[in-house]
C-alpha cells in the first residue's frame, strides 16, 4: 500500500482523534445536547447518563472508582488544580507567611507543573527541584533523600514528554504517602499507553488528557483519591459547583464522551499496541542511531515509553534537519523555533550538551502509524543527515580530528 505524505510522527504533541471516538461524540452536539446540570427534563438526564458512562470508562482505565474522576479542560488544568489545590489545602501556615510547607518536584517536568510550583514558591512554600541523572530518571532514592518533616506534596511526571523516560512513580508514591504527604503525577504521556492502577501504583492525584490518547482536545481529567486517605483540594475554579465543587463550569459533554470512548479503546488495545509500537521504535533507533556515526538516543535505554524516541544527530542542527525531512512531521529540541535561542531545558537537565540538544529530533509513533511509514522515515532521515553533514563546518572539523568543544567560539 502506498503511504500517504506527510507522515505524522508527532503523537506526543497530539494524536489524531480515533473515528470511533468522533462517532461517539457526534450525537452530543445535535441530539443529546442537554446540560447534565438540568435535573428536571429528559435532555439533562440523557446528558448526565452520557457523562456517567464516560466517568466509568475513564475510571476503569486507571483502576479508580468513577466518583474519583474530576473532568477538566485537559492536563494543564488538572495539574494546576492538583498542585495548587493540594498545597493550599494542606498548607502548614496561612497565606502571607513563609514556611507554609515543602513540595518536591523535578526540573524537567512539563511547564504545566513547573509554573504552578513556581507560583507556590512565591506564595511561601519551599520547593526541592530534583535534577535527574544523565539517564533522565527521577528515582525513589532521590525523592527519599529530599523528604522533610514538613513535606506536603510531591509531583513527579510518570513519563517525560520529550524523551519518554519513565520515573519510578509507584516507588516514589510509596515513600511520599507513607510519610503522610500527597503524591501527584502528571501522567499525560503515560495513561492509555501503559497499564495503570492508582492503588497498586500508590497515587493520590493523577492528571490525564484526551488528545494524547486519540480523544478530542479541550478535555482531560484529574483523579482525586477518595479512600485511604481521602484527598481534599481547594477548588481553583469557582461557580456552579459541578464536579463535587472541585471544578465549576458546565460540563463539556461531547468532549467527556469522547474522552471516555478514547479510554475504553486504549484499555482494549493497549497490550497489542504497545508491542507493535515498541517493535517499530526499535527499528527506527537501530536504523538511525545504530548505523549513523555520532548519534545518540537521549534518556535511559530501557526505561522509556514504547512509542517515543529522541535522537541527537551530531553536527546537524535540528530545525534544519526538520526542514530536510519535510514529509515527516516531528519535533526538535532545537531552540531555533523559539525566540529564546535556548535549546530544550529537558535535554539540558540530562546534561546533554547544548550542541547535541540543538541536534535532536523527537519522533513519537501512534495508533495510525505503519511499518511502511517507519521504513520511509528511516531512508528520508538518513539522507537528510548525510546532506546536512556535507554542509556542516562542524562535521569537517570532526573529520579533521578537531575537538569542537575545545574551540573558543564567538558567542553571540
Amino acid at each position, binding site marked *: 500500500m502506498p503511504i500517504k505524505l506527510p507522515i505524522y510522527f508527532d503523537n506526543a504533541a497530539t494524536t489524531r482523534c480515533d473515528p470511533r471516538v468522533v462517532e461517539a461524540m457526534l450525537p452530543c452536539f445535535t441530539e443529546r445536547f442537554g446540560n447534565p446540570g438540568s435535573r428536571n427534563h429528559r435532555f439533562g438526564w440523557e446528558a448526565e447518563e452520557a457523562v456517567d458512562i464516560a466517568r466509568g470508562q475513564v475510571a476503569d482505565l486507571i483502576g479508580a472508582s468513577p466518583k474519583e474522576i474530576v473532568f477538566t479542560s485537559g492536563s494543564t488544568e488538572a495539574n494546576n488544580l492538583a498542585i495548587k489545590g493540594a498545597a493550599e489545602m494542606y498548607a502548614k501556615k496561612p497565606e502571607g507567611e513563609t514556611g507554609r510547607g515543602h513540595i518536591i518536584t523535578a526540573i524537567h517536568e512539563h511547564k504545566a507543573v513547573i509554573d504552578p510550583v513556581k507560583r507556590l514558591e512565591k506564595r511561601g512554600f519551599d520547593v526541592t527541584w530534583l535534577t535527574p541523572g544523565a539517564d533522565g530518571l527521577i528515582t525513589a532514592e532521590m525523592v527519599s533523600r529530599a523528604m522533610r518533616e514538613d513535606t506536603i506534596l510531591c509531583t513527579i511526571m510518570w513519563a517525560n514528554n520529550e524523551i519518554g523516560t519513565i520515573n519510578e512513580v509507584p516507588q516514589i508514591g510509596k515513600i511520599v504517602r507513607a510519610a503522610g504527604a500527597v503524591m501527584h503525577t502528571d501522567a499525560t504521556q503515560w495513561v492509555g499507553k501503559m497499564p495503570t492502577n492508582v492503588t497498586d501504583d500508590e497515587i493520590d492525584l493523577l492528571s490525564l488528557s484526551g488528545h494524547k490518547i486519540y480523544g478530542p482536545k479541550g478535555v482531560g481529567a484529574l483523579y482525586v483519591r477518595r479512600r485511604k486517605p481521602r484527598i481534599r483540594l481547594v477548588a481553583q475554579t469557582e461557580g456552579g459547583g459541578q464536579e463535587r465543587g472541585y471544578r465549576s463550569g458546565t460540563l463539556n459533554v461531547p468532549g467527556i464522551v469522547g474522552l471516555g470512548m478514547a479510554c475504553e479503546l486504549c484499555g482494549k488495545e493497549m497490550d497489542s499496541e504497545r508491542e507493535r509500537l515498541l517493535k517499530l521504535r526499535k527499528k527506527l533507533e537501530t536504523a538511525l542511531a545504530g548505523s549513523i556515526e555520532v548519534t545518540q538516543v537521549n534518556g535511559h535505554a530501557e526505561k522509556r515509553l514504547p512509542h517515543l524516541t529522541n535522537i541527537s544527530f551530531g553536527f546537524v542542527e535540528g530545525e534544519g534537519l526538520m*526542514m530536510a525531512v519535510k514529509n515527516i512531521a516531528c519535533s526538535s529540541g532545537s531552540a531555533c523555533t523559539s525566540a529564546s535561542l535556548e535549546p530544550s531545558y529537558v535535554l539540558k537537565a540530562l546534561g546533554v550538551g547544548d550542541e547535541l540538544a540543538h541536534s535532536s529530533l523527537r519522533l513519537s509513533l501512534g495508533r495510525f502509524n505503519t511499518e511502511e511509514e517507519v521504513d520511509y522515515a528511516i531512508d528520508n532521515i538518513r539522507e537528510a543527515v548525510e546532506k546536512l553533514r556535507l554542509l556542516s563546518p562542524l562535521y569537517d572539523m570532526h573529520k579533521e580530528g578537531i575537538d569542537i568543544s575545545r574551540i573558543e567560539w564567538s558567542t553571540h
Partner: protein
Amino acid sequence: MAYSEKVIDHYDNPRNVGNFGTTAEVKADKNVGVGVVGAPECGDVMQLQIKVNPETRVIEDAKFKCFGCGSAIASSSLATEWIKNQTIDEAAKLRNTQIVEELALPPVKIHCSVLAEDSIKAAIRDYKVKNGIAVEEAAHSH
C-alpha cells in the same frame, strides 16, 4: 512558521557549498580569507571562505558551510552569491537588512542574517591580516 520560497530554494539548492582545502591548507593560502562565526551551543555556526585576487582585491570565488536552521543556510548561501565578483571593500558594505529583505526572514530569524554579515566581515578581516593590510576596528558589534 512557513519559510519563504527563496529560503526553500537556497536550502534545497545551496550555492557555493564547500571550502578551498583543509583547515591547514586554507590557513597557509594568503589569497584566502576565512570567517567562522556563531557557536554550536547557539545552534548556528557559519563558515565563509573567500578567494581574493591579489591585484584587484576582487573576490573571485566564495564558499560556505553552515550548521544551522534553514534560514541560516539560506542566508550564507545568498551571501556567497552576492559577494562574488565584488571587491573586498564593496563586500564589506553588505548589510544584514538586505538579506532579511531578500529572503523575507521573520523577526525570529534576523540573527541568521546578522551571522551572514559577520561571516563576510570576519573573512575579509582574516584576508587583510594575512596580507598585512590595515584593519579598521569593527564598528558593528552585538
